[in-house]
């Protein structure tokens, strides 16, 4: 059954309405594919929930499904994308007519705004690009939602150049549309207009507020355009195919090495709550964790009240050892993001360690512990590490051998039996000497040596990667490609 055949929303959403249930189960399968943990009970709840909420009320419907299926806010974005794909063809205001003709869609942009020629989209296709730009400006100025939606459609029809069956992703069309609209220019235009409108000069504060307001509206417009493109793609290719191409990993599953800029921003946002949760969990574990060793003296003393029978064993106060951490991180281009996140995480929970020292290298090596001392903003410190640390020796290509050499020479004596050394990097040595004997020496002196590699395990020891050689001198070598794996490792460390 293809979904696109069903035009118009079904009346209500009764139990006998099997197409809806079919659609819903397909939807849930897709959610699971995208990595959301949807249990059977939640599935049943969702099925029951939709009998109470008419599908025509799309927002309420979305929230109803969301509340039963998504129990973690960071998964909401992924849910939203899947929802858009599966249900975007439903609900009257979103119906899509006559796409193939390239004509303006006959959707109703609500009551026409004053100054706009005859609300209908058909009229718009006769406009020149200049007129269109002007209308866009006006709609943004007044924050006219209905008009913006109509304009977004028109822009997609006009600029995206979508052809049925063309195997191009939505981002390509989005890029083409946005390039033609020149939204940065529009923002400046709006600011100029706002300056002109106000009787006196705008104070910087007011200017800032205006700018935020307009950026917000432009962001809305972008989302409209994106949604429009998605709707058209779904109409063209069908639901399942689209869901597959649009599938986005959850923030904790995003690969450090291949994250897009947008995903990076999400990751940065995700790391804050993550570190907080981790810190709370570790602190609790420490407090409740284990008992200390038997306190013999105390036990004997208490045995007096039982006539000398040691009935109530007493334990010493637990003193769990706090490890001393040395992080040695490769911050060359390919793995920089990974090093950044790991440093961030380690410092965020530095209270769990007796001491944290960090070193970064590319082909030279530099200690960066000082950047983190007395700094409240870890993010800022990490940024400084990337810009200020002196890590280039010859040519700025990773040279693990030389970096280890410098480390051993300058800081080798600080490695002691309490120290845990963590090396971060992909061990792509650009065919330099490996100097793995140094790692062996370090392992002898240190409590533990771990290696974290952000590359997929399948790529290890291919090309110039020599992680296998190094890992013989490590207690553990771990693949850490995303936040989930990173979190798991750090927890184990403590």
């Amino acid at each position, binding site marked *: 059954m293809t979904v696109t055949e069903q035009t118009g929303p079904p009346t209500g959403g009764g139990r006998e309405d099997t197409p809806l249930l079919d659609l819903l189960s397909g939807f849930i399968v897709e959610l699971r594919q995208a990595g959301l943990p949807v249990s059977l*009970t939640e599935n049943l709840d969702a099925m029951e929930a939709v009998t109470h909420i008419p599908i025509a009320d799309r927002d309420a419907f979305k929230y109803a499904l969301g509340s039963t299926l998504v129990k973690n806010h960071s998964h909401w974005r992924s849910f939203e994308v899947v929802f858009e794909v599966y249900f975007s063809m439903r609900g009257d205001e979103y119906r899509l007519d006559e796409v193939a003709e390239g004509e303006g869609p006959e959707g109703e942009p609500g009551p026409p705004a004053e100054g706009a020629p005859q609300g209908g989209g058909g009229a718009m296709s006769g406009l020149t690009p200049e007129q269109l730009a002007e209308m866009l400006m006006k709609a943004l100025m007044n924050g006219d939602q209905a008009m913006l939606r109509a304009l977004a459609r028109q822009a997609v029809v006009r600029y995206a150049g979508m052809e049925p069956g063309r195997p191009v992703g939505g981002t390509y069309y989005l890029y083409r549309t946005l390039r033609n609209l020149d939204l940065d220019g529009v923002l400046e235009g709006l600011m100029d207009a706002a300056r002109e409108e106000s009787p006196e000069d705008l104070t910087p504060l007011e200017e800032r507020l205006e700018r935020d307001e307009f950026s917000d509206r432009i962001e809305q417009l972008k989302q409209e355009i994106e949604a429009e493109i998605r709707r058209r793609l779904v109409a063209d290719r069908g639901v399942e195919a689209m869901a597959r191409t649009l599938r986005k990993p959850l923030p904790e599953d995003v690969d450090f090495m291949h994250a897009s800029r947008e995903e990076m921003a999400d990751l940065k946002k995700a790391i804050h709550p993550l570190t907080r*949760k981790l810190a709370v969990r570790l602190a609790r574990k420490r407090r409740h964790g284990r008992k200390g060793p038997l306190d013999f003296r105390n036990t004997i003393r208490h045995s007096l009240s039982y006539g000398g029978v040691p009935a109530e064993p007493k334990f010493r106060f637990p003193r769990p050892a706090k490890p001393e951490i040395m992080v040695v991180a490769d911050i060359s281009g390919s793995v920089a993001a990974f090093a950044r996140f790991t440093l961030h995480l380690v410092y965020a929970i530095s209270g769990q360690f007796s001491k944290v020292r960090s070193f970064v290298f590319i082909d030279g090596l530099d200690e960066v512990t000082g950047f983190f001392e007395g700094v409240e903003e870890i993010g800022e410190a990490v940024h400084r590490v990337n810009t200020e640390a002196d890590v280039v020796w010859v040519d700025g290509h990773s040279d693990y051998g030389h970096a280890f050499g410098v480390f051993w020479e300058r800081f080798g004596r600080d490695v002691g039996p309490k120290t845990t050394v963590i090396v971060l990097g992909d061990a792509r040595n650009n065919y330099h000497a490996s100097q793995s004997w140094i790692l062996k020496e370090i392992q002898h002196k240190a409590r533990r040596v771990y290696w974290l590699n952000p590359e997929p395990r399948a790529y290890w020891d291919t090309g110039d990667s020599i992680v296998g050689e190094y890992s013989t001198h490590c207690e553990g070598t771990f693949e850490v490609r995303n936040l989930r794996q990173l979190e798991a490792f750090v927890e184990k460390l403590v």
Partner: protein
Amino acid sequence: MDFRFEDVDGIRRSLAGANYLADDGIAGIVYLADRLGKPILVEGPAGTGKTQLAQSVAEITGARLVRLQCYEGLDESKALYEWNYKKQLLRIQASGDDSDWSEIEDDLFSEEFLLTRPLLEAIRAEDPVLLLVDEVDRLEVETEALLLEILSEYQVSIPELGTVTAAQVPMVFLTSNATRELSEALKRRCLYLHIDYPDLEREREIVMAKVPGVDANLADQVARIVRSIRQLDLKKSPSVSETLDWARTLVLLGIDKVDAQSATDTANILLKYRTDIDKAVKEFADRPDDLVVDNDT
């Protein structure tokens, strides 16, 4: 089973009547919770009105609010029920020698000697109640299990007495600040509602509704400035309650138009960290150099 609410819109209206401005999501999920008879797990940053939502829903349904404040170390005897040991002891002493032991034993574990705690109280209530389990994330993972039976079956099992089943399905709200991940078992039993910072319009309306004497212009400005501040990368973004405090302060100071100077002077009400305040002030200040001089004079 009869329901408390007619439709989603009705909820939104009556919540607005109780001075709580709900958006589509909130009202829809409250409606759904009523229909499905499921608890709502409300999560979100501090100070966005999670607890207030439960209180307002209690108000509009005319239910008595039974509140369980969670904290680390909360246990069965504080959350569910406890036997009144002192009274039991008295009962044994008062009985004298001639009475039959088995009779006393039966008597000891009867309702007379049971001390109800919030969870049991909510279950046994005859009148309409609304159970609010506040800050669930402060419980330890093991203690969370205490809640499971209540949340799914609306009953409490007491070994000596048997199972106490709810006379009526109460509305249940759980709130969490997300300081830790709640267990799957708990989440599965609840509808999930994430309350985020409100959007511009809603925040403006909230300010209008909650701050007496504020005019529309000031409310609009306050909401806009707060939104801009939230876009900065801060340790702690201003919450709704802090927005309200700020708006009240501005009204009290007789400021009807916020400029950089007054925003700087009162930023400490909105933001609670030195670094955050510095950052915001830097963003909004007119000419940073002049400002320093202004402050000195």
